[in-house]
């Protein structure tokens, strides 16, 4: 167990390192001068040079990379160009908002999608299930920015029930959560239905039924426990993806999370801020994925992490379906 965790943490650190290096290189290759974005209209050449020197942009890429790595070890991710504050602090200040949104969205998704999926599996091939099926297909076919704007128009402009943007009260959480949940419910419930249908047709269920186990127990205690791992993996992967910032939804609702932060940072070419955001969110994502993997043996006693590490990765890799938050 300990060796397994150590190995996984080692892999995660390597992944993070590669990710952040990729971002670093991509950023330095990108056209567009952060100094120009920062200097304001009609800068003089001296202005630009002064700013470049101040941000350390006049060094060669290798020197910049060295400085960056040195900072990484000491937990200093540089100063954000546009906020004039430590980039890490700016990100950490926004992070709670994204986490709040992600948690509420995943909770709503789980609460709706699992019962819905089970219901669809039990009513397989009926007219009702067909109707639910059409609804979920529509749900997964709506672009999230569009459904967000539609919800916003109806519930914040036409009938002003909820605040339109930002996070001023807890009511502001409702519309973004709904927007994310519509898509996720559609995806997860279809997945639950698939898993449950497979398990409900399994021989062990027939045996249990013939021994007189009630339908409710058959569904939840027998079929559901066996569907738990793929379902949990899917939910976890979705949650991890949301921590990367539900970029589009945050932009639509002007939600003060890391997603909208990163879009702004990209526009202003705020290198340290982009790097800090990527590093923090990627670290969180990797952490969540690790926690999911560690939860497998709790759900299924047959799973032994250290020995079957190879097989175990199979569900984790197979899970996402259109996994773009």
């Amino acid at each position: 167990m300990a060796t397994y965790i150590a190995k996984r943490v080692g892999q995660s650190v390597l992944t993070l390192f590669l990710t952040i290096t990729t971002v670093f290189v991509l950023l330095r290759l990108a056209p567009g001068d952060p100094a120009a974005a920062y200097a304001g209209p009609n800068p003089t050449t001296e202005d630009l040079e002064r700013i470049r020197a101040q941000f350390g942009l006049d060094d060669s890429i290798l020197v910049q990379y060295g400085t960056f790595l040195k900072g990484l070890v000491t937990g200093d991710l540089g100063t954000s160009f546009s906020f004039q504050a430590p980039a890490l602090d700016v990100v950490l200040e926004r992070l709670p908002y994204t986490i709040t949104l992600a948690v509420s969205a995943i909770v709503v998704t789980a609460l709706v999608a699992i019962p819905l999926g089970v219901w669809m599996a039990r009513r397989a091939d009926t007219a009702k299930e067909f109707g639910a099926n059409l609804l979920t297909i529509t749900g997964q076919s709506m672009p999230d920015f569009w459904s967000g704007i539609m919800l916003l128009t109806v519930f914040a402009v036409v009938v002003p029930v909820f605040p339109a943007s930002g996070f001023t009260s807890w009511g502001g959480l409702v519309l973004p959560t709904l927007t994310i949940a519509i898509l996720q419910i559609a995806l997860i419930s279809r997945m639950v239905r698939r898993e449950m249908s497979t398990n409900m047709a399994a021989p062990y269920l027939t045996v249990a039924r013939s021994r007189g186990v009630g339908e409710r127990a058959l569904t939840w205690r027998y079929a559901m426990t066996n569907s738990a791992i793929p379902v949990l993996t899917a939910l976890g992967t979705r949650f991890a993806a949301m921590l990367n910032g539900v970029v589009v939804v945050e932009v639509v609702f002007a939600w003060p999370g890391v997603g909208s932060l990163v879009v702004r940072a990209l526009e202003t070419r705020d290198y340290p801020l982009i790097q800090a955001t990527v590093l923090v969110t990627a670290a969180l994502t990797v952490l969540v994925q690790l926690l999911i993997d560690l939860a497998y043996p709790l759900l299924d006693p047959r799973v032994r992490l250290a020995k079957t590490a190879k097989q175990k990765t199979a569900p984790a890799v197979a899970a996402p379906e259109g996994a773009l938050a």
Partner: protein
Amino acid sequence: MTTTLTPGPATAPAPAERPSAVTPADLKNAGARRRERSARVKLRVGGVCTLLVVLPVLLASVLPLPGPDEQDLAERRLPPLSAGHLFGTDQLGRDLLSRILHGGQTSLMIGLLAIVVSGLIGIALGAAAGFFGGWVDAVVSRLLEAQLSLPLLLMLLLVVALFGPSIPVITAVIAIAQWPEVARLTRSLVLVERGKPYVAAATVLGLRRVSVLTRHVVPNVLPQATLVVLLLLAQAVLLESALSYLGAGPERPFATWGRIISDGQDYITTSWWLVTLPGLFIVLLVVGVNLLGDGLRDRTRRPRGLVRRVLSRKPQEA
């Protein structure tokens, strides 16, 4: 070869002299028949939805519409059903329907190109990983895993910022985002096929490993892989519109759907159609493609005619 094989019970109605407890009504309501019916409904509805979007988009330059970039400041933000403007006009007096259809050409082209690229890469790498195993599998699997832990949309935005929002760049970016899904599926399918006797037989007959893979294994996994690639078209259209919405979409020749929506967002309180109608176009197309994919997967009967030849092609020589 084209004689249809209906599922068992339906072809053999109970002989009159030996009455069966299974009534025709039971047969009609049997799970398989119901599944088949719903698959047929899905295929038809999906086909209609897709055509409703694709046909007008393809005919955009033939239809009697004002040009998508013709501005008329006197006719700004006319509501739908105004004279000469079925969908109304936008903030610069441009015909909304014309803009949607011309933008749709770009969206569709990017989507189609992207799934062709991601399909080819995904099937090739996935099949190689599944069939050869060893270091090939290790490399491909690590790549798949690495991409899963990357903040994908952010990376896509970054790459678009790097190379500029041109159509080839956006196509490539979407293909990069999508190939893992095809590769994963192909790999797992090939892993199953690899153990089947015909592979051993082909090897014994002296075929080279690459030939076994390309001539015998790949044709057997193609139907299912193609289906996933079709479903990815829906994802590609959604992804392209999201990129456009965030300002990383193609601007030339015409603004695509996501861009039209983000431009119209500023006027949502007074001109609802600027956002609603392009969005409905996206939804209609994506629902159509998803239904087609679902229907194809669910149908119990083997497809006939053209679809069958495309989806379940057999290798030419045994």
